[in-house]
Each structure stands twice: as C-alpha cells, then as structure tokens.
C-alpha cells in the first residue's frame, strides 16, 4: 500500500513534466489552426506553409520576450499597447482561452 502511494505520488509529481511535450504539440496545433490562432496568416513560422508577411517572423521568441507576461498580453489584447494594432485581441474577444494562449506560448518558446 505504502509503495502504491509512493508510486502514485511519483507519477503526480512527474506529470507536469511528462505532459510538457504534449502541451507543446497542442500549442503548435492551436498556432497553425485556421479557426484558432491562425498565426500563419501574418507570421512566418518554422514548418508553416503559405505564411503571411505583415507580422514579424516568429523566431527567437524567448530572446525577444524574456517576460512571459508581456507575450501573453500581446496575444490576449495587443490593442492595449497599440489601439490600431492589426493583430486581433484573441483573449479579450474570446477567440482563444487563457489556457489555449498558454499552450501557444509554450510552443512559441521552442522557436
């Protein structure tokens, strides 16, 4: 019994780490999905075909956005920083949930 609890605990502790690659895969899917992020409409992304070019290419994201909160805010509501921004306020207008944006960021940080 004791060893069962131990191994369960072990699994629970490891779970977030174990699911991390899945989160990245999900984030990539949300990034590319035309009905979700559709980020390729404007941004070039590694692996992405027929990318648009009116937004900056998405690369070196960790270097460009060392503060995760700033990147989150840019996706949640870019009009906060620039009311004329061409980028849709994905979070504020309910196109993406908080959870979905976080998965997208996990993926963006691998770029």
């Amino acid at each position, binding site marked *: 019994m004791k060893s069962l609890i131990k191994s369960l605990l072990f699994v629970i502790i490891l779970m977030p780490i174990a699911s991390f690659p899945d989160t990245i895969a999900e984030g990539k899917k949300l990034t590319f999905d035309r009905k979700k992020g559709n980020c390729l409409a404007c941004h070039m992304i590694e692996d992405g075909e*027929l990318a648009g070019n009116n937004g900056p290419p998405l690369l070196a994201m960790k270097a460009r956005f060392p503060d995760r909160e700033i990147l989150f805010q840019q996706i949640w509501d870019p009009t906060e920083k620039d009311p004329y921004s061409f980028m849709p306020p994905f979070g504020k207008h309910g196109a993406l949930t908080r959870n979905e944006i976080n998965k997208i960021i996990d993926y963006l940080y691998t770029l």
Partner: protein
Amino acid sequence: MFKQLLLLAFLIPSISAIASPERDYDEFVSYFENRFPDTPFEDYKNGVYSIDKSAREQWEAMEEFPPYELNVDRGEELFNRPFKNGNTYGSCFENDGIGIRQNYPYFDNEKNKVVTLEGALNDCRVKNGEKPLSYFKGKELAHVSAYMAYTSRGNKFNIQIPNTKEALDAYEDGRRLYFTKKGQLNFSCADCHVYQTGTKLRADIPSPAIGHPTHFPVYRSGMGRLVTLHERFAGCLNRIRAKSFKGGSDELNNLEFFTTFMSNGLEVNGPGSRK
C-alpha cells in the same frame, strides 16, 4: 481663457468644414500613389491584380474565355423579360438602363437615402407589382446587375455627393463603417485594404481600397456563381466574425456610397472574374 475658448468655438466648425469627401478622396488617391508607385491610377479598376503581377497573368488567361459570359447573357434575358404588367426593368431607368452603371449609387434627395443599382432594380420591381429580390446567392438581381455593368464598361464612375446634411451624413456613416474595427477579429475594412494592402495574409494579398466596386458583381470561380457587392461586404464581415448587415440595408448602401466615391474616375469593368 475666454479668448481661447472663443477661438476654439470658431475653429471647431471650420475644421469639420475642411474634412470633406473631396479632401478624403485626394488623400486616399495620393496614399495609393505613394504606396504603389508602379500602378497607374486607371489600373486600380482591376482590384488586386493592379498590384499583384504573378496572379495577374493567371487572371488575364482566365479573362480570355470569361467565365461570366453565360451570366451576362442570362442577365440580358432577365433584363428584357416583361413583368406581369408588361413593363421591363429598362422602363425605370434613364437611357432604358443601358450604360448607366457608373451613376450608382447616388443620394436621392427625396427619399433621403443612398440608392444603389440593385436597390433601384428592386424599387423598379415593387413599382411594377413584383416582389423585391435577394442580394445573395447570385440569382436574378446579380444577373441583371451584371448585364447592366457589362453595357456600361469603359464609362467612368462620377459619384456626386449633394452638399446637404443628409447626404454628407450618409457618406460619413459609410466612411466611419469603413474605418471602424469590428468583429471578434477586430478588423476594419481599412486595416486590410488601406494599411495592409500589398502584404500577404497567408497566400492572399488584400486588394487596394480604390477600385473595389468597379468590377462588381463578380463571378467567383470558387463559388461558381455571381456575387453582388453587398454579398461580398457581408462575406467580409463574416470572415472577421462580425455581425453582418442585410443586403440593401442603409449600412451597406452607405458603405457602397463611400467606397464608390473613392473610386471616382475609374472605369466600370464589371462583371469581373475572381478566384
């Protein structure tokens, strides 16, 4: 302080007097001159093909055997088919409806509203005891409009805005709609067709804002049918996940008034073909 306020009171009306449709037009045209120095003004009637050379070749090849030819023939048939009372569409129009596309839309001082060609066709039907038609799905209204555009090819748009409060308000309403961000994706018409025209959205290049209405209705090969300007407006609003307006609504009439005024001086070349 009082002096300053007084000065302001004089300044405010004069500022709004300066902002006029003519001034907007000049600003608009010179914006595109600077944005696409290689595109001659008269070429904007070709929409996106005025700025996208590679897509233009394909389009020109397509135009050699125009996909809308049968629609124009059908439009002519419907245009000449008498209503139950014996009248035809032509009876409601100047020059029997031939070669007049460039005069629409206009502001009707009696009705106090913008009248589009499709709106005038529906008014004509009602006057003759027939039911008005839908702007959508490329049915009779789109066909008759396509035929009337076809008979007007080469004529230049010259939309006049009467200097009355009502007409200027209608223009202003259309202009405001053009520049207002809308929908879940928060785009204005101007976001794509003024500020981002010429860039790539996925594989598509948003067309420039001048020359939009000249080639409508269009035959869209992807849909295999004609699309009226109001159906296209509604399609755009739908794509940005905004609530659309009805075909023939004041909102879309005024939007057409604004966009067509911005296309003054360009030739009618409808119906156009698009992918």
